[in-house]
């Protein structure tokens, strides 16, 4: 019964019937998480935007095959994962420097580049930028599957079980991937973690 379904699944049932308004609601809701995931995997703003767009087009085209029993976000992130994997494989076959990377020689993601430059000159901001660069580099050096696991881990709407579904592996393997990724990051960013150079802003830990 539609009443028992998650609201996104109800919207998807409308999308299945060709309702673009329902589709628009879903795009608005998930565009940022999908773009973030693509960006963290591909580390290229332009490619991530194109990929996120393709994800939603794919959602529209595959709406007929969507089973309302599956949680929409799990299905959506699985599509995102598949397209990212394809892109990573394509890159491996045809390695080439992207325009985005050429524009950002310091490795900082293009998305935050403009904002940071506007605030350059403030020492805290410079320090933050330097740390961000280190973190971005450390993340980019992780194996793609660990990077994906870590990125999905930050999607609050997904449970560990759902992350495992998106990754296509068991729950214990998923937690192991996240653990290994975090251990690598801790080792790589040890100086910053020990000195507390990274000021805490959010959350009570």
């Amino acid at each position, binding site marked *: 019964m539609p009443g028992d379904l998650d609201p996104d699944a109800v919207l998807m049932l409308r999308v299945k019937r060709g309702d673009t308004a329902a589709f628009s609601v879903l795009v608005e809701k998930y565009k940022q998480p999908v773009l973030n995931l693509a960006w963290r995997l591909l580390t290229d703003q332009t490619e991530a*935007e194109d990929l996120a767009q393709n994800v939603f*087009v794919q959602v529209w085209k595959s709406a007929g095959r969507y089973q309302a029993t599956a949680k929409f976000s799990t299905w959506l992130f699985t599509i995102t994962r598949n397209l990212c994997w394809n892109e990573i494989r394509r890159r491996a076959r045809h390695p080439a420097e992207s325009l985005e990377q050429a524009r950002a020689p310091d490795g900082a993601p293009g998305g935050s580049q403009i904002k940071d430059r506007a605030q350059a000159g403030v020492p805290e901001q410079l320090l933050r930028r330097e740390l961000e660069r280190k973190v971005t580099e450390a993340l980019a050096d992780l194996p793609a599957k660990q990077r994906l696991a870590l990125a999905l881990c*930050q999607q609050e709407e997904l449970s560990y079980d759902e992350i495992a579904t998106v990754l296509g592996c068991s729950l214990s393997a998923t937690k192991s991937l996240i653990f290994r990724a*975090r251990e690598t*990051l801790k080792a790589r960013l040890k100086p910053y973690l020990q000195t507390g150079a990274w000021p805490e802003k959010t959350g009570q830990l």
Partner: protein
Amino acid sequence: MKSDPVYQQLQETLWRRPLTAQEAAARRAYLAQHPELQADAAAEAALSAILAQQPSAAMPSNFTARVLRVVAAERQSSPPGWRSAWRRWRPRLAIAATVLATGWVVQQQRLKHQQQALALAAQEMIRTPALTDPQTLADFEIIRQLPQPTVVADEKLLALSDELLALTP
């Protein structure tokens, strides 16, 4: 990974979101009893803070409009209803048609071979000479009506032969 399930649970929660006041207090209490874990716990907390502060990707203001435009173009280019279904089923139908055509061709070949074998056998039969000349059968009735030799006659002939043998020195 740490073996204590409560601490492990708190760690896994920390991987995903900041802990609530209650969870943080439970974690602090556990760490107070296990000082050997404090360094790693501090690193875990700092890493979680770093990852939580990772900036989001910059979202283009016209993203949704772009997606909807592409979808609208898709809708116009993709025919609805039976034509869409036909497009989806076309590859499967093509495969099925190929399989059927291959099967038909194989069957036809087999029939052709059988027919050729039959034709060869028929030719062989035609080439075989007739067993009886029709001229031979012209006197068939006369021969059939000739008296058949009887067993008695044969016995008389044998006795006569024995007598002749006895007379010979």
